């Protein structure tokens, strides 16, 4: 009866595949176990016999036959060797290049960027109230009154913007005029279109368009009055 848990080690020992310490352990077991010792002897004899069988050289004619067959196969395709590997390489390279070009053409990242609208504003475009008609005769008193009204309106607009948006980007003192929207650097989207402010009178509404530029530090506010004229 062989020791099942020793069989693998005995088989490795028979072929000289154990380290010295492992071999010593197995040898100790073999000295105490007749069945495993017999197994080891059988294994050694079998390996020796197998090696004997296979150490006999094959006849030279068998090798020559293989060489002749190989050379005959190669002769069927003369010149193939010189071309074949490089043809494959060239074909693969061409295929890879084609795939790359196709991927470039179809890739969304390489498609031409869509034209952003220069300005998108939802606020109704209204004409500024015409305060002065060319050639009209106005008195100095009327002109002063109009100037004072415009100044008050401008101040009201500045306060309104600051109160609603918490920003103070409108420089005080300067007139509140329409923003210049056609600048090339304004690739902006109108972020807001203010409804008519509560303080606005019935016949005068304030509209504001906030334009964001590429520069985060530059925000353009377009403020204008909607007096109802032109509607």
């Amino acid at each position, binding site marked *: 009866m062989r020791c099942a848990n020793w069989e693998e080690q005995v088989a490795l020992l028979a*072929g*000289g595949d154990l380290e010295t310490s492992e071999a010593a352990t197995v040898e100790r077991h073999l000295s105490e176990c007749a069945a495993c010792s017999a197994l080891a002897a*059988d294994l050694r004899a079998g390996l020796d016999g*197998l090696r004997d069988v296979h150490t006999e050289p094959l006849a030279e004619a*068998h090798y020559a036959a293989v*060489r002749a067959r*190989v050379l005959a196969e190669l002769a069927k395709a003369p010149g193939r060797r010189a071309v074949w*590997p490089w043809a494959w390489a060239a074909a693969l390279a061409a295929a890879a290049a084609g795939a790359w070009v196709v991927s470039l053409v179809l890739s969304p990242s390489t498609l031409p960027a869509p034209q952003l609208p220069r300005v998108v504003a939802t606020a109704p475009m209204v004409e500024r109230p015409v305060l002065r008609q060319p050639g009209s005769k106005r008195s100095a008193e009327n002109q002063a009154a109009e100037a004072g009204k415009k100044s008050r309106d401008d101040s009201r607009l500045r306060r309104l913007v600051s109160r609603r948006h918490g920003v103070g980007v409108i420089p005080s003192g300067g007139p509140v005029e329409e923003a210049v929207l056609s600048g090339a650097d304004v690739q902006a989207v109108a972020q807001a279109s203010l409804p008519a402010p509560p303080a606005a009178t019935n016949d005068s509404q304030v509209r504001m368009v906030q334009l964001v530029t590429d520069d985060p530090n530059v925000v353009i506010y377009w403020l204008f009055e909607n007096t109802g004229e032109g509607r």
Partner: protein
Amino acid sequence: MKTLTLAAVEAGDEPEGHDTALEAARAGDRAAFDLLMRRHERLVLGTAYRLAGNLEDAQDASQEVFLRLYRNLGKLETGNLAAWLYRVTVNVCHDARRRRLSTVPVDDEPELASSGGDPQQRAGEAERRALLLRSLRTLSEKERAALVLRDLEGLSTAEVAGVLGSSVVTVRSQISKARLKMRDFVERYSRRRL
């Protein structure tokens, strides 16, 4: 124990001459390729014969190995040619065996001819060889390859692992199982005859 390097040297594969022949073969020199075949034919045909178990299949496999060598001359690294040839030989023999198994059923443990008569007369050297060769057929593909490369080709366990793409632990397990299976086959046959 023989190493891959030793096997290559025994095959007349000295590094300098080998490089020259390989380079010339790469350039399309048929005579240089013939020289390469002569240097490695014992490795290839011998291994194929031990794996296939018969000369005809071994020659077919060897032809395929050398044709693959020819087609891959441009990719081969000079120092690894012997290992490459062992690996391809094992693969080609395995492929051929699978094709054979798919068309012709083969018993895992073929019955040996038992013609009766005096056991002493039949226990000649030829029969003993046949018995050992048949015992190889009882092994699985991997066990057989591991045993042939380790015990017959004399490669180290690590080299066998490299050729077969396995770990050393796996190869040791395959080798020990293969030896035990072969021993059991021979023992069963001997007991049957008695």
